């Protein structure tokens, strides 16, 4: 639908980290197309893929990006981060954003297993599967 409620939910639940307005999930408009005889706007959501061999974790000089054993997400251990910005440069999909104000990368952490983007999607277009 392109309502971007997921972006809003993400920004909101992570706003304590000083990242309001910087969602870790984004909706990308992809023009229009014919679907079952009806012209529809096309949207794609993109968020961190939690790569099996994550480039961000690989370049991190302090091992501040680690795999959470329960959620399988790559999460930022902020205490270990030295804010060098290498992870932002390394991610080939553009999902690491280095926030220049708080000087930490913003990273999808799957909200600890219950992602706000999926919870708040009014169309149930997002879900988390094990």
């Amino acid at each position, binding site marked *: 639908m392109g309502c971007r409620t997921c972006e809003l939910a993400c920004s909101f639940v992570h706003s304590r980290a000083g990242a309001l307005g910087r969602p870790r999930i984004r909706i990308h408009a992809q023009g229009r197309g014919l679907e079952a005889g009806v012209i529809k706007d096309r949207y794609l959501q993109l968020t961190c893929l939690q790569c099996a061999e994550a480039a961000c974790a690989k370049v991190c000089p302090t091992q501040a990006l680690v795999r959470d054993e329960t959620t399988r997400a790559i999460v930022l251990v902020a205490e270990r981060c030295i804010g060098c910005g290498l992870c*932002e*440069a390394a991610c*080939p999909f553009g999902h690491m954003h280095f926030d220049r104000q708080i000087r930490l990368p913003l990273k999808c952490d799957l909200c600890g297993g219950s992602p706000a983007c999926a919870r708040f999607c009014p169309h149930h277009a997002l879900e988390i599967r094990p």
Partner: protein
Amino acid sequence: MSIRLWIDDREVLAEPGERILEVAQRQGISIPTLCHHPALPVLGACRVCLVEVQQGKRREITTACNTLVQEGMRVATDTAEVRGHRAMNLELLRARAPEAPAVRELATQLGVARSRFRPPAQNPLPNCILCELCVRACAHLGHHALAAVGRGDKKRIGLPHNRPAEACVGCGSCLSVCPTRCILLKETATTRTIWGQTFELVRCKSCGAPVMTEAQRAHAIRTKQLPEDHDDTCELCKQSAASQRLASVVW
């Protein structure tokens, strides 16, 4: 072989080579720190993590961050004497860094409302507490561009010999780890200035947004074995490119 020691009369087990601070933190005992970073070598510069350590007949006040645990050690983290020493050091730090929220907060917690001391007369880096976290982060990244320059009350953090340092790539990690955020970093659309040096920024090849400094990129390519054309795109353009690739698969 584990080491047995007591922290605030609580019996705890630790591994040889561990330091009092990390063992205490694991036990949920909080010790204030300013110059400690778990990913960087310990230094013991800020003297805020002072604790009382009793080992046999010897009793001393020492820093928790760089003191190795020993069998039978008795550590007290919150005695009146410990608080007094911490308060004294924070009063000195508060004079040096009157505008730093982290210092002010800790000082207030220890009842140091104001400082009787004056900051150094000519300080090129106001609010710097000389904790050398920036120096350690810079060295950890392999740049070694920063150092403590001068001695005594003339000691300050800067580029060695006060000359432009080729080793500096302008990554800003020094600012990221600085507990008082006293390092000046200025960014325009095309340049970044830090430590008096101005760096050209790589601009995103699609939208022109600043990405990182040229020197930073060159260093990343060299040390992380990345392809030569690595990262000339900003993260939003990387995302759009990914979304277009995905769209061509979906539709």
